[in-house]
């Protein structure tokens, strides 16, 4: 068996294949991201029984339903605190939150901020498609200023989150951004992050042709990926200003922070248990 075939089979074993086809539109970037994640898990040789995946609600929130590991499709915005409880109670498990931008940063924003601050040992894969897809294309906390959505018919007056900046400012030891066009880089980044500790955040800019692209002159998936390809620049030492995303503007990608040795909440609590038992 070729190595490629071997990886493909292993990836397949991490999917609940009986649940396919999935709910995502053809050409959606969530599947690409999920595939990159599963390949990274295979490469990292993680025991599937030691991995839990937690999602919130939304298009990306459905990801937990397809992975053949302990997986939880929780409530809107609450994937992170659910994962926090799971991880804190079972510190030996790998816990990955796989969810969308609206879920993680609007309704779930407070949990993101505080879990990052406490440095829980959780990997967050944040799929940013600039929009609320599941509900039909309303603007969200990452919709670029000026973009058209069903709730910004005259263009978005709102200002989007700069996710890597947010994560870094909260002390997250690992913060990266890629697009679905950067398949290998994304996979490598997830692979690296799986070997790191602490609150790790990977933002994945992902195409939603169905409800975002269509209103912003990128009707088909290829046009959106072309846009990602043409407009992205890899710059690991980007400044916070450079990381900002603008409407149809440049997309600075890279691994913006990768530091080791910051104690996680779980590690610090082991010390609390030691002190309490004295």
């Amino acid at each position, binding site marked *: 068996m070729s190595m490629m075939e071997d990886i493909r089979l292993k990836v397949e074993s991490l999917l*609940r294949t009986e*649940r396919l086809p999935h709910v995502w539109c053809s050409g959606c970037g969530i599947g690409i991201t999920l595939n990159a994640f599963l390949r990274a898990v295979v490469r990292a040789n993680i025991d*599937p*029984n*030691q991995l*839990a995946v*937690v999602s919130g609600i939304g298009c990306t929130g459905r990801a*937990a*339903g397809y992975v*053949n*590991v*302990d*997986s*939880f*499709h*929780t*409530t809107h*915005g*609450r994937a*992170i*605190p*659910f*994962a*926090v*409880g*799971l*991880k*804190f*109670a*079972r510190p*030996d*498990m790998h816990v990955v939150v796989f969810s969308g931008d609206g879920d993680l940063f609007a309704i779930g924003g*407070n*949990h993101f*901020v*505080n879990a990052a601050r406490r440095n829980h040992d959780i990997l967050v894969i944040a799929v940013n498609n600039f929009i609320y897809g599941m509900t039909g294309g309303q603007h969200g906390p990452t919709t670029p200023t000026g973009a058209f959505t069903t709730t910004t018919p005259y263009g978005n007056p709102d200002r989007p989150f700069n996710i890597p900046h947010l994560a870094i400012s909260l002390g997250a030891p690992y913060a990266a951004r890629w697009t679905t066009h950067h398949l290998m880089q994304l996979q490598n980044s997830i692979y690296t992050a799986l070997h790191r500790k602490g609150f790790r955040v990977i933002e994945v800019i992902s195409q939603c042709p169905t409800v975002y692209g269509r209103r912003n002159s990128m009707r088909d998936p290829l046009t959106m990926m072309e846009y990602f390809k043409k407009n992205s620049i890899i710059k690991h030492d980007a400044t916070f200003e450079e990381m900002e995303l603008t409407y149809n503007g440049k997309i600075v990608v890279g691994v913006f922070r990768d530091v080791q040795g910051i104690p996680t*909440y779980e590690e610090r*609590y082991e010390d*609390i*248990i030691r*002190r*309490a*038992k004295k």
Partner: protein
Amino acid sequence: MNAGRYFWSGDIAAAEGAIAAGCRFYAGYPITPSSEIAERMALRLPQVGGRFIEMEDEIGSIAAIIGASWTGVKAMTATAGPGISLMNENIGLAVMTEVPIVIVNAMRGAPSTGLPTLIGQGDIMQAKWGSHGSYEIISIYPSNVQETFDLMIDAFNYAERYRVPVIFLLDALLAHMYEKLDVPPQEEIDKRVINRKKPTKPPGETLIYQPDEDLVPPMPAVGEGYKIHATGLTHNEKGHPELTVDAQEKLVKRLNDKIRKHAREIWKVEEYLTDDAKLIVFAAGSEARAVRTAVDMARKEGLKVGLMRPITVWPFPHEYVEKYAVDYLVSEINYGQMYHMVREYASGRVELFPGMGGEIHTPQQVLRAIRRMIE
């Protein structure tokens, strides 16, 4: 805790009762009058190898205990009115995904911020109907510190036995009131402790939402190879979403029936001088203490009055109400909640003796209400 006599508040007794029941995980957010439960857990849990975390809000707190419970640990949180309102969406998630958790709600004057340090009993209906949808939970409500400790063991037992959130009601009076209580030896408590059923079949052969005869599915923990999938969406016995009328009918009916069919095993009701009573006063929690004194006073006047105190508030112990063809006076610190339940099942007259919150009735006030109703 070592066996012996202690002088504790309701809050401390709730925390210690939880630890005695085997609770080893607490996530919470400070709120009056339940904060002392969090403080006690922060102190005590790490001593017994458990874990305490103060979350960013009540929504995070309940999400965290649901996540923790999937690891097999007994988990709880505690809050009060504003916090329980925030928790309600995730109480629905715990109901739908059948996760054992215990939530303490120390009721205070409400609505909104109301009277944070003073008693209310306005969350009785909310305990049952707080989250959206048609579902059953279990709710119990002690009326003294000893009972708070003892019933906490039952609360965890119910949660584990039926895979359901248990809402443990306290009120501001009981939460902050100090009383003597006896803590039995842990070996005796252990004999009473129930743990969740584990799957008997290996992974691969187990449908994680396939119920046993008792309508409760065994519960695997994460990391055991069962490849659990849990979703708040309507799901089938595999745990996979199945968004059909049939799946909804089957699942939601079972979630309700697993509690309804065991109601008799769950119900705990205290009856005091009800045998020959012509009028029964129905009251719970701290309010029932004043009512008991009022009943004694009424008896001295020759009035045939008794007290019925639901310890199990939900599922509502209706058979106890139905048992007596008498009039009922429902004395509660709200503008009529249990009153409606009693009215549904009583055959005689039912009257409400309400209080808007901040204090319980005095025995004299209750006595006057009794006299009015008897005349």
